[in-house]
């Protein structure tokens, strides 16, 4: 499978930035043991009476990156927001169906959405550092509300450093941890947001078009980061950029008009799509 992805990346090298990633991929342990982490069963997401996501079922694996692609308005972001109960924070939104995190229904009667979000982290399209907090406070922002075993994982200081290192931001900011996060570049801000999400050690990380507002260099850094995170957790990335999906993911789901059309290993979906609509989309015939 690694081979076929390599072949695919090579064939799409016109965008330029993938050479580096290819080496990365070659080093990365592609056959880490895995198991199902999130099981989605018949998920329908509504805004008022309009369904944005229709009856989607899929399984997300641990230590794998799953990409969700599709034209804008296809419901891919909405689907992502259902996985940590962010969807319901919008006025008239509601959800039907089941999402099981390690066998526990996150939409269960007794489940607290805030608790769910501590285990399923999220990074948004636009960087969202808290403007009133310093870099350090931003990274630590989720800590005080996170799991009660914080103490076991070390001091805040250590956690902040670890998170920033994982987000490969440590060397750039270690000398100005107490300055405002607003002064950073867009790419740095986005990596700060990833560090902030990692500091609470989530089991699943959701990325909603994380590189849409970044320049190519920052994009590459974030992509490398995603591939490194794969060693520990399940990552779901929504992207409108098919090359990105091909570069960073193990599995790819194609959404259209709120429905999941196809869900296959990335190499297969890009080389040998089963559905003609998928083929039409990835060959650029629409969207």
């Amino acid at each position, binding site marked *: 499978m690694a081979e076929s992805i390599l072949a695919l990346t090579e064939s799409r090298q016109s965008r330029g930035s993938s050479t580096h990633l290819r080496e990365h991929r070659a080093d990365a342990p592609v056959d880490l043991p895995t198991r199902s982490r999130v099981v989605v069963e018949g998920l329908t997401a509504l805004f008022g009476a309009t369904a944005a996501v229709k009856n989607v079922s899929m399984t997300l694996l641990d230590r794998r990156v799953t990409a969700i692609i599709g034209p804008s308005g296809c419901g891919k972001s909405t689907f992502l927001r259902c996985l940590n109960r962010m969807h319901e*924070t919008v006025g008239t939104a509601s959800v039907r169906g089941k999402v099981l995190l390690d066998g526990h229904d996150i939409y269960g009667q007794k489940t607290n959405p*805030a608790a769910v979000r501590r285990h399923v982290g999220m990074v*948004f399209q636009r960087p969202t550092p*808290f403007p009133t907090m310093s870099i350090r406070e931003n990274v630590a922002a989720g800590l005080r*509300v996170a799991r009660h075993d914080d103490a076991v994982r070390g001091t805040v200081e250590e956690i902040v450093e670890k998170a920033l290192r994982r987000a490969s931001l440590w060397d750039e900011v270690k000398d100005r941890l107490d300055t405002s996060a607003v002064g950073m570049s867009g790419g740095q801000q986005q990596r700060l947001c990833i560090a902030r999400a990692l500091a609470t050690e989530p089991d699943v990380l959701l990325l909603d078009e994380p590189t849409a507002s970044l320049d190519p260099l920052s994009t590459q850094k974030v992509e490398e980061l995603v591939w490194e995170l794969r060693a520990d957790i399940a990552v779901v990335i929504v992207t409108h950029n098919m090359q990105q999906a091909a570069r960073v993911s193990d599995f790819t789901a194609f959404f259209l008009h709120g429905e999941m059309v196809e869900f296959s290993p990335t190499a297969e979906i890009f080389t040998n799509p089963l559905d003609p609509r998928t083929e039409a989309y990835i060959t650029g015939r629409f969207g």
Partner: protein
Amino acid sequence: MVGMADSEPSSKCEVTKRHDPPMTSLPNGGPSKRQRETASRTRKTLRRRRATNAFMVGVLALSAVLATIPLILILYHLLKSGLSSVNVDFFTNTPKPPGETGGGMYNAIVGTLMLVAMASVIGMPVGIGAGLYLAERKGTKLANTVRFLADVLNGLPSIVMGIFAWEFLVKPIGHFSALAGAAALAAMMVPMVTRTTEEMVSLVPTSLREAALALGYSRARTAMTVVLRTATAGIVTGALVAVARIAGETAPLLFTALGNQFTSYALNKPIAALPLQIFNYAVSPYDDWHAQAWAGALVLIALVLIISLAARAATRGRIDLGAD
């Protein structure tokens, strides 16, 4: 020569039309008579229209000048008549009986500060809470109703608040009190703070709120540590504008705080207030009290302007002293 508008809508005319205009403006033929007439008419009306434009700009600029004159006059008279009586005594002494010169408004200054502080303590939490509700539940029926009613309350005469507080607090308790005054002022503050808080909280991007929620923050924590903290400057401005307005209120206090010639720190007794004292002195027959009234007005306006300017500084660029 026939203009384009006169041509008949037949296909033959279409053809003619296409050839017609170039004919009228051949290089050596010059503009047609009709074109020359139109041009001269345009020039003439344009001259008139331009004159009208210039005249109106002048009238508008003049009205801008006229509108600022009252402010300048009032400030000038305040300084001229009040400055001489503003001295150390004014800030440290209590009023002397009529006929005796000297004395000050220490009691009134203390009273005003106490009334405003109490009103803020009562009114601000309610206003900020209601404003948060309006911003967080935007579009719901209750939110729309509350917003509308807050606007209506904002426009109600302050004397109505005084009557309300008198009937609600003074009459049942049996005597005038500082607390009743503070309650009347707080009732005025609530709708003002509600609306400015709502506006400021609405300016906080949804993405920030979502980022906090996605970290596992409860909605309450999100509101307190992210939303309110980001909107702090704006909310402070709104609160200061409200404070500036209630600090100068007199009418509600006539029915509640009543006024006091002596310094009082008791919450359940009548208390002096700067605007009340100014009113009482202004309508008195004594020249010395008139001078004190001017001095009091100067101090009051200095207080109000300082608060207003502080509010302006808190959020640079937004002027919001007027009717929201």
